[in-house]
């Protein structure tokens, strides 16, 4: 870890879920989810596939609607009217990178600042180059996404999100689509980011990363939060039988 871990500011919640429910057809995929994420907290969400963890973080920036309950993000209630304000505060990185295939790496990073925020092209490009530099992909600025390795694409995707100064970053299984030899470079980038005081919500199966970086680990199963604990307690003394079963299968 680069810096000493910034301590989460427990008095200011960055993201708050209260009694969130969601259904896909008849499947009840989020059941009464309540959770408060503090400002600067690094939260890792894990659980078996289909447990609702990706759906949960997609709700944070309104990519998925939810049926009942409330979500507050950076002081804004998540309503259609406040959605633009929420999305300004939240950055997101996807499992499949989702770089815009028809734009160069640099254009990927400047598209939203220029067209969404009205930042001038010069300033947007300068900022984008800084962020690409920070993620060690500055030399790829003029390439097309299809010419990059998975790890490089994911680092570009992180840079693209950072160009918008998000207060909260969502990571939806950022290493699951990568070849094993590229997982580490992305995890290293995430670890660097974790030292910067940004609020992170990360869905991942990388338990080593969770242990090193997370302030708290959330375990979800069948649409519910089953256990929330600091990493030492979570990995060494899991309480719920489901958690134990999950960890036993993983390790």
């Amino acid at each position, binding site marked *: 870890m680069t810096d000493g871990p910034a301590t989460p500011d427990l008095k200011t919640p960055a993201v708050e879920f209260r009694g969130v429910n969601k259904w896909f057809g008849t499947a009840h995929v989020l059941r009464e989810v309540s959770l408060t994420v503090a400002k600067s907290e690094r939260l890792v969400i894990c659980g078996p596939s289909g447990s609702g963890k990706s759906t949960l973080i997609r709700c944070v920036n309104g990519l998925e609607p939810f049926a009942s309950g409330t979500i507050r993000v950076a002081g804004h209630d998540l309503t259609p009217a406040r959605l633009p304000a929420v999305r300004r505060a939240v950055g997101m990185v996807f499992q499949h990178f*989702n770089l*815009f295939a028809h734009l160069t790496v640099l254009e990927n990073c400047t*598209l939203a600042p220029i067209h969404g925020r009205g930042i001038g092209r010069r300033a947007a490009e300068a900022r984008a180059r800084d962020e690409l530099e920070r993620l060690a992909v500055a030399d790829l600025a003029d390439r097309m996404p299809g010419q990059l390795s998975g790890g490089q694409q994911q680092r570009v995707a992180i840079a693209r999100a950072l160009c918008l100064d998000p207060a909260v970053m969502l990571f939806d299984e950022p290493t699951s689509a990568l070849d094993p030899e590229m997982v580490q470079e992305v995890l290293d980038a995430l670890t660097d980011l974790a030292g910067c005081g940004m609020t992170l919500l990360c869905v991942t199966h990388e338990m080593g990363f969770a242990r090193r970086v997370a302030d708290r680990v959330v375990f979800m199963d069948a649409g519910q939060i089953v256990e929330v604990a600091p990493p030492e307690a979570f990995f060494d003394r899991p309480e719920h039988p489901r958690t134990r079963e999950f960890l036993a299968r993983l390790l």
Partner: protein
Amino acid sequence: MTIVRETLLPPAPPPRRTGGPVGWLRTNLFSGPGNTLTTLVILAGLALLLPPVFRFLVTDAVWSGGAGEACRPEVAGRPVGACWAFIGAKINYLVYGSYPAAERWRPNLFFGLVALSAVWMLWLDAPRRGLGAVFVFLVGPLLSYGLLAGTPVLALAPVATSLWGGILVTLVVSLVGIVAALPLGILLALGRRSDLPVLRYACIGFIEFWRGVPLITVLFMANVMLPLFLPGDLTVDRLVRPLVGIALFASAYMAEVVRGGLQAIPAGQGRAALALGLTRVQALRLVILPQALKVVVPGIVNTLIGLFKDTTLVSIVGIADFIRVLEAARADPRWSAPTIPATAYAFAALFYLAVCFSMARYAAFIERRLAAGERGRA
């Protein structure tokens, strides 16, 4: 038992291919009995077909002469193929129809505008392509209409559309179809994927109606029935009526092509755009559509080729398009000779072939270029 390699192999050059034209022939044309037989059958077919075609179009053709006599075998004293002298004598009529001779600079300027627009849009690295799109889809059509039909604004005398004809009309009909069908088709395709049921079903209904009706029915409807539905004092120009029909007809097909492209773009692209704070309209305009349209360039060109050839149907409702003026020209008694009809149709075939083949080649070029630009797209 373990195996450990002690020295790593350096890369070796690929094995030499059996070189020379003989080697090429052997591997590509005569590699086995089936392959050899196929080659021979096709060669025999070509040997039967090509010499007569070449004789008709070139060696036996009559290239000059002031009247039909030159193309009569008994006058020429030899077998006569295509009578190109006839095309030469009629070329102005074939290009402009009955457009007044003194005003023919106007269609010529229009052809120039079309060429400029085509280069601006089709040359992908052309400067200011955004401005070009505005020109092609907005300024160009208005300017062209003023130019051809005449307008006091440009101090041009009016020329009734009934005088327009030939390649000019074919070009006008096709271009109106193309220029209207692309944007309309995009809107319809987006509408068909809308979350609003009313909009969605309206678009589905529109598309399925126009796709379900033969173009010729559309043209007859436009010509015969539309005036019945309109108030008596409102007359729509007889060239405009089929134009509207063709534009709507083509837009339905275009919508389905574009929808295919929209479906080919992974949902993650739109999600990423929204997550970055772009609005839905921005996500469409900046992320989804540019990619979707690139994917369907072959389909779009295919539709445009079909549209271009379908415009010949307007001759049935009395529009003097290229085919119709060709028919009129070959009925000229001064040019009655046995091969005149064949010459006329051969000329038409060559004209349509040249245009459609160019479009197809352009599409192939775009495809190759896109394949190079987005290699290994995930």
